[in-house]
């Protein structure tokens, strides 16, 4: 029996099997005489196993293509644009992050930022549904000025948004599904402008469609669903743009509207 006092570190090292055999035996003796400490150690061992049980399955998940491809040096000019340095990429992303924070903290904050120029085409850090959900919660409750250009000036809206996004962009017609176009606006995305179209039904429930041309390098995806508080978001990428439909409506209804939106963009 050693006279070395048992320390907290010893107990953790015991849990983590990091002790030399001799010391390990001493700790076992100690635990046999101290049931409270033994219970604590057992709880720590159980914790460790639980963490492994919960998170180890991630190891077996198929790797997303964007991560798999990063096992090799990234091709800086894959899209044919000037991607001269990651440094500029990172500083751009910092600006983008700042814009998102400003957006989340309110319209006033957003106004203070000038949307910066799209000089880099890399897909940036904010996941599409998150950007869309933030944009939805910022603008859809706004009773007086929910959009920049009202549906009455749809011609202007189409021309403006198309010009700034650099692709023809008509807001889909959702009236047959019960949603009238309220209007639209431009927003800062991760590296350039994105569009938000707002719709509302006859009870005033609002849906926003967020269209981001920043997903040109991502291949087509299926519909995916995300949730942020009371806002449900259905999103997908069609090879040209990323789309996200947000609203405080049920998933099924969102899926029904999304299918209509998808079809309209597909048949352009």
């Amino acid at each position, binding site marked *: 029996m050693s006279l070395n006092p048992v320390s*907290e*570190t010893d107990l*953790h*090292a015991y*849990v*983590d099997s*990091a002790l030399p055999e001799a010391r390990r035996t001493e700790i076992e003796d100690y635990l046999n005489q101290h049931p409270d400490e033994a219970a*604590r150690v057992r*709880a*720590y061992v159980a*914790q*460790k196993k*639980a*963490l*492994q*049980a*919960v*998170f*180890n*399955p*991630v*190891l*077996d*998940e198929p*790797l*997303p293509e*964007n*991560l*798999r491809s*990063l*096992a*090799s*040096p*990234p091709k800086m000019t894959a899209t044919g644009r000037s991607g001269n340095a*990651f*440094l500029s*990429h*990172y500083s751009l992303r910092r600006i983008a*992050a700042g814009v998102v*924070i400003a957006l*989340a903290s309110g319209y006033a904050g957003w106004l203070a930022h000038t949307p910066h120029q799209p000089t880099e085409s890399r897909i940036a*850090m904010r*996941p599409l*549904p*998150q950007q869309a*959900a*933030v944009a939805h*919660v910022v603008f859809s409750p706004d009773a007086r000025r929910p959009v920049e250009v009202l549906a009455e000036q749809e011609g202007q809206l189409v021309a403006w948004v198309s010009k700034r996004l650099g692709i023809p962009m008509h807001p889909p017609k959702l009236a047959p599904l019960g949603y009238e176009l309220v209007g639209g606006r431009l927003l800062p995305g991760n590296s350039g402008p994105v569009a938000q179209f707002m719709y509302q039904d006859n009870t005033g429930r609002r849906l926003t469609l967020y269209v981001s041309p920043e997903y040109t390098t991502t291949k087509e995806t*299926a*519909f*995916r*669903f*995300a*949730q*942020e*508080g009371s806002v449900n978001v*259905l999103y997908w990428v069609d090879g040209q743009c990323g789309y996200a439909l947000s609203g405080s409506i049920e*998933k099924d209804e969102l*899926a029904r509207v999304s299918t209509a939106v998808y079809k309209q963009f597909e048949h352009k």
Partner: protein
Amino acid sequence: MESSAILAEIPRLRRYARAMLGNRAAADDLVQDTLERAWTRFDKWRAGSNLRAWLFSIMHNLRVDQLRRPTLSTLSTYSINEIENEIPTRAIQADALEVRDLESALAQIPDEQREILMLVALEEMSYAEISTLLNIPVGTVMSRLSRGREKLRMIMEGNVPATKLRVVR
């Protein structure tokens, strides 16, 4: 630096990122950022040194940067089964409640303690390795491990009211 060596580390980076951030999309974004940053500095990586430790330290530093700014960290993302065939591999029905308990308990552990719990449990790193990785003394590793484990035990045993994750609006 060999691609296959990096490829072999990605699942571990994803697991750790998932454990730290909770949601899949944010975790994979962090892994992506980590790999991108690694490629910008791989001239600084000494061949033959520990690739895993190097990647983990890059991820740690990125995450520390991210912690300085607020995020909508509670956004949860999952697929619609009826539309999409991809089935989430985690949280099998029977375990779902338990998993949620553990995850909501974890969310209440301070980040600096949680990362050590995870590095010990998931990466099975030694205390000395963690000390080097996080650039903190071993004594600090031990005290954070001790406090983190004890706090998690208290929450799981119901001695601390388990507050649910709240959504940032």
